């Protein structure tokens, strides 16, 4: 145990996710060290930190996408609504229905725009056309894509621009009304305009969804998030209100990072 970061837990009245003593190993090499923190409900939480510090690894824990990696070993717990998500009795499919995810590289399915949006519903067994169409429209509107695609819903999603694709992925994630949306550097491949679009979207969704966003862009973190966690070499260095963390960082490492002295 490198250091005790229990002090990083800040008082959060209504938390949705509680991370307790989370250690993660890829084979023998440890990637996450003893993480302890709570994530507030219906707020935007940003994860920042230098490349390779374990941000992606951490958010993949929340929807158990790490199960797909054979060598992963996890101890500790992540509580979602008072239920340890690593418990054997948890159905990972149910879990993932509750947690949407947006990837760094947009990955729409090679299907029509419409089919992309309602994919989650379809596999959940929804077949009524009106329900599906309604859901598609609502989610596309929520993700600010509706106006651009409403006339070509049945065209292939492959014809969209990169920014549109990423918003489509967000629409796809929110179409199943998840409790949490995980975003792993959703804007890293986008131009400033598209980035602005998505940031606006995140602010829009704030208050309605719990959003955990990984970003390398400090401005972005400060613009969209309520809380920020700073990870460094697999450890949680500092976690607090975004405004505080960016203005009066407690830890030297945090200050160095946000002022651009490393990473």
């Amino acid at each position, binding site marked *: 145990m490198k250091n005790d970061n229990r002090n990083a837990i800040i008082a959060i009245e209504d938390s949705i996710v509680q991370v307790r003593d989370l250690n993660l190993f890829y084979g023998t090499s440890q990637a996450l060290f003893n993480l302890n923190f709570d994530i507030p409900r219906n707020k935007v939480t940003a994860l920042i930190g230098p490349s390779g510090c374990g941000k992606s690894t951490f958010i993949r824990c929340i929807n158990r996408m790490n199960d797909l990696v054979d060598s992963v070993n996890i101890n500790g717990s992540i509580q979602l609504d008072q239920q340890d998500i690593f418990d054997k009795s948890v159905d990972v499919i149910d879990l*993932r229905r509750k947690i949407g995810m947006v990837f760094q*590289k947009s990955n*729409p399915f090679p299907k029509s725009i419409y089919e992309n949006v309602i994919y989650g519903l379809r596999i959940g067994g929804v077949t009524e056309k009106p329900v599906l169409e309604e859901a598609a429209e609502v989610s596309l509107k929520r993700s600010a894509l509706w106006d651009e695609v409403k006339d070509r819903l049945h065209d292939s999603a492959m014809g969209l621009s990169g920014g549109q*694709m990423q918003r489509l*992925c967000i629409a796809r994630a929110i179409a199943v009304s998840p409790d949490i949306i995980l975003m792993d550097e959703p804007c890293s491949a986008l131009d400033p305009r598209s980035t602005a679009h998505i940031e606006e979207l995140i602010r829009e969704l704030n208050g309605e969804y719990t959003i955990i966003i990984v970003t390398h862009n400090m401005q972005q973190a400060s613009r969209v998030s309520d809380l920020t966690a700073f990870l460094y070499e697999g450890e949680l260095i500092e976690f607090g209100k975004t405004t505080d963390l960016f203005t009066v960082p407690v830890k030297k490492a945090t200050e160095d990072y946000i002022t651009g002295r490393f990473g």
Partner: protein
Amino acid sequence: MNKKLLKRNKFYDKLAHYVITIGGVAVILSVVAILVLIVRVSLPLFQPPTSEIVDHKITVTEPLAVIGLDDYQENVFTIDQKGVLSVFSLQGQETVPPVDLGINHDAHIIFTSRSRTEYSLLWDDGRLSVVGISFRPVFNAEGTRSIEPQIAMQGEYASLPTGSPLLQSFFATSVDEDAPGTVRVNLHQDNSVSIFRTSISESLFGDVEETDESFVIPAYFETISALALSEDGRQLYAGTGGGTLLHWDISAAPVLEDTVPAFKQPITALGMVFGSQSLAVGTADGSLTTWMGVRDSDQSTTKKLRRIHTLTSHDSPVVAILPSRRDKSLLSWSAKGELHLDHMTSERNLYNFALGSVSLASLNDRGKGLIALTATGVQLLKLHNPHPEVSFKTLFGKVWYENYDSPEYAWQSSSGSDDFEPKFSITPLLFGTIKGTIYAMLFALPLAIFGAVYVSQFAPPHLQQIIKPTVEVMASVPSVVIGFLIALMLAPFIETHLVALILCFLLVPLCFVGFLFLWHYGQRFKAIHEMKSGFEFLLVLPVILGGVLLSYYVSPFVENQFFAGNFTQYMFENIGATYDQRNCIIIAFGLGFCVIPLIFSISEDALSNVPSGLRHASLALGASRWQTAWRVVLPSASPGIFAGSMIGLGRAVGETMIILMATGNTPIMDWSIFNGMRTLSANIAVEIPEAPVDGTLYRVLFLCAVLLFGMTFIVNTGAELIRDRLRKKYAQY
């Protein structure tokens, strides 16, 4: 230095460009060259017949009774009406001294007929002479060849003591070694027909004894205008001025078998087609048809004359019909001097010469030379029609062959007898190719694709690493080994355990469904629930094995209980389905074994190459692995899977060895999975060793190759087009 590097790079770029271009062009050129080569061999099948007038100096002064040409087209022989036989070279010289065949020097020949190499000459005093004329090459001491005529008097028959005077007389020698003898058939002026038969029998002590019989067929009420006698002297046909065709069986006392009043016209000429199975009939309006005895139903044993082929009509009454002695072609000419050569089976009009007037004509025995006596003298023609029996219809359509009860798609290239007519219908071969491919793909596609999906999407990594190379090793098993195994081991095994196999198709899925229920129920047990994903599929293996074993042990009971102890027998008796030991089930297994690795390997690659982002997106949305595989991975990999399937299909279409060994190679057209078939590729392999170069069979086999080429070309082009569309549809960024 930088400039130098740049130059070098440019040079290598160019070099690579040229090498690659040359390689590509060479590939295309060699494919085209192969195609051109095989097309060139098969093309002469469809070339129209050609002919060429041969110059000669032969002049005839006397009226002729017979004219003929030898096989080498070097000698012409004539018998004039006084009975003088002369042989001329093309320069007009007599090569042997003329032979006087007559005895009574005042007599004239009034009628001639021919049976094989024997000419029967009927004299106006009622006598009949039979003379055999043939030619034989002779080599002298210097090695130069000359053609020598062989003239043999076969018999002299005195005039009949009683009866009305003769109009026509026919003579035939039996070829049946057990019943040697001769037959003479006469048409009298009073319209009656007399038959004289001499049978030669040998007693136990070696004494040769001749028995003579004679019969008279009383005058028919219509005038008999033409007669024809089969070469064996057993069947007699007559045509009347009233348009009726009569048929007697005269192997014993004459029996009138058929009376066909089908012609609205007087029948003016009859002629037996080579082989003496079919009869050609010419009428006064110039129509030319061929007739054959056909059983009118499967049960009946008697045959009735039916019109089988209609050949090109003449524009005036048909005067004479002469068979080719090489194939089923017929030489016929009309009153206005139209000379036709038609092929009966293909109904092709090979030649159509307008010669003004024809008094005599003859084809030589090889069918390559034609001689005709016209108002302007002797006409000699060299014919070139190597494939008269081939037409589009005989290759692809139903053809009514001799000895068949109906038109059929038949492939039969050879048989023991000399006058056998080869049958070249490619349709059953195309059918067999398609059938074999379909059954093989039905078996191989699901297995290969499901296997690929399992290995790429579900199997634990170390299992993946075992399965994939193993399956790929399967691809390197030579097809002759597969053919050998399935033909000699699997085929007999399946034959004895057919019911077990069929039960498998029932019981294995049942066991599987049962297993699914158990599995679902078993989820509440910790051990099962926590089983590492990917391994649950391995549990299915014992289930399938269990199903197979169950079928195996239950089958004797089922067979006894429901199928009277013998399933194939039962099947035959109740639905008339026959069971060949080498059938499509065997082929499905064999071809399947050979194409599964191909399809599997390509599909597996395609599936593995689906970007993991897509899988992750689907899984993160709460899709199960199966849903992900089915809805996201499979469609995205579909172009690759499709390509793999098509390569497998192409392989199955062209695969030869397995088919050759494991089917009976019977060219039948039957969808039954219990029967074999003959495919284009196997057909080529089976027949080519026996096909004389440039013969019809040889060229038809090359045509098969062209078709095979065409089929694979169409499959591949179609596949490429579809794959392109799929690729566009499921394009990945």
